[in-house]
């Protein structure tokens, strides 16, 4: 039953117009950056479109992993924000009652719900990156390969560039899942779905303060999301995201698994 519930949540979330619009807009934005920022794709001349590759050529790798980077930051934030607000929406609208009466367990319901939210964020984010990769490879040559265009795990990139892309997709997926998890966490205290949706953005912005004070890598959310820091590696990005995921989703399960969250007079009115 739990798998069926997860499937339903995925279908509900990923067919929502706002999700599809965000997905399309982000893809188009990425495509635009890949296409227009690179110029004609030929040998780089002097000027603002100087090629990052050592050979002086723009490649699919450099176009994807350098000029499209701003979108990597936006994808997890927006996709995660839309999926993450779904828990608050269900609570606000009363849809949880339809599901809960069939699932017969609050814990199972919230577990199915947040796994669906995580899966929708992960899939949307990873898929948009992979589509941008396909677009980049359709436009530009895949060689020569220059490890200097990536900021971390350069050796791994040189030996397994396609696996590297796959892992970047996974990192972005985990980042989106975390942003959605932050929204889920906010749903415990905030009832308004819009406020809940905006919470990951606020969280991202305010993370600058603790990061500036502590310089802890785990608090440098901007670098973790945009994959823009030399000191990073797939291992420590994964570790950081897993910590966030466990905290956000764990606390959400604990709170939403308890009746008391629905048990106040205001909450009971729906």
């Amino acid at each position, binding site marked *: *039953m739990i798998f*069926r*519930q997860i*499937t*339903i949540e995925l*279908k*509900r979330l990923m*067919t*929502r*117009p706002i999700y599809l619009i965000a997905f399309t807009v982000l893809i188009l934005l990425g495509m635009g950056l890949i296409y227009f920022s690179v110029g004609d794709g030929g040998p780089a001349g002097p000027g603002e479109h100087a090629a990052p590759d050592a050979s002086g050529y723009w490649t699919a790798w450099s176009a994807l992993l350098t000029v499209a980077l701003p979108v990597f930051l936006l994808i997890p934030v927006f996709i995660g924000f839309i999926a993450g607000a779904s828990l608050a929406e*269900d609570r606000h*609208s*009363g*849809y949880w*009652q*339809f*599901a*809960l*009466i*069939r*699932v*017969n367990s609050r814990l199972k319901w919230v577990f199915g719900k947040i796994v669906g939210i995580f899966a929708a964020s992960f899939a949307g984010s990873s898929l948009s990156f992979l589509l941008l990769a396909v677009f980049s490879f359709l436009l530009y040559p895949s060689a020569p390969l220059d490890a200097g265009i990536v900021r971390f795990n350069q050796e791994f990139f040189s030996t397994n560039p396609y696996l590297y892309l796959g892992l970047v997709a996974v990192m972005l997926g985990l980042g989106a899942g975390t942003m959605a998890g932050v929204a889920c966490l906010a749903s415990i205290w905030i009832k308004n779905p819009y406020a809940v949706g905006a919470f990951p953005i606020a969280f991202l912005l305010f993370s600058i303060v603790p990061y500036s004070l502590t310089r802890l890598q785990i608090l440098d959310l901007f670098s973790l999301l945009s994959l823009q820091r030399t000191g990073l590696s797939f291992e420590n990005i994964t570790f950081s995201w897993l910590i966030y995921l466990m905290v956000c989703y764990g606390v959400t399960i604990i709170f939403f698994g308890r*009746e008391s969250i*629905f*048990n*106040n*007079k205001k909450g*009971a*009115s*729906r």
Partner: protein
Amino acid sequence: MNKAMATAKNVGKAYGEHWALKDINLEIMTGEIVGFVGPNGCGKTTLIKILAGLITPTEGTINVPKEGLIPGSAGIGLAMESAPFAAHLSGYKNLELLAYIKNVISTNEIKQAIQIVGLDPGSGKKVGHYSFGMRQRLALAQAIMERPRLLLLDEPTNGLDAQAIIELRDTLKSLAKENGIAIFLASHLLTEVENVCDRVLMVKQGKIKKTFNIKSDNERVPVIVQTTDASDIEKLLIWLKAHGQTYQVIKANEVSIDINMPVPKLVNSLVQANINIEGIIKKAPTLEEEFISLLIKGE
């Protein structure tokens, strides 16, 4: 044989210091439609949520038996006042998703449920474009599609037009009588509750003030006998005393009698006793009158 499909014993629910419900005792039998009326905030929705198992009572016990359920039945069907469906999906798609959680009914059964409530299962119209009444009907279809034995409805007629209300009334009666579904219905539309329910619980400040049996209470209502003139009243009073009837003189030629016999028999007896009768009125107090006297005036 009628079985209790839901039993509440001394149920109470407190939100902090405030008791939303207190000392609720009730049984809902198979095929019975029980109404729950009261002013806003009297605990209607809270009781429905308790019966549905969505929230637990602070005190008392709820028993909704599982045995004897139709295989694959949802057990409980619930339609709340709000109808929170996914706006970007059609009515059918919404129900299909919900039905997939338990996965015990076929697509035909989903379509059938949609048809029962008067919607078109083949329509691709998105729920976001539904009227409020259509959403309410869809919520009812959602509640009945998995063949529940206990149906809990919170304000099901909200937003429905007159024709839809009549159709809903017929649907509920048919579900109760033909399928043996026990229905518990909370509403503020007293006329509708009176028309559809077998029994009505009147609630004020979380407590059941009176149980109004629509049929049996109506059978025991007093009749008002009007005589042609005052001399007939004297003969009537003598006759009433002789036959042990309880009565109350209202006017010079009008007496209210708590009869313990059918009205035709009373008429025959009075004619045989040579009492000239101008008219006989049998008027049960409506639910609205009961509501006003009990819950508003507090009599």
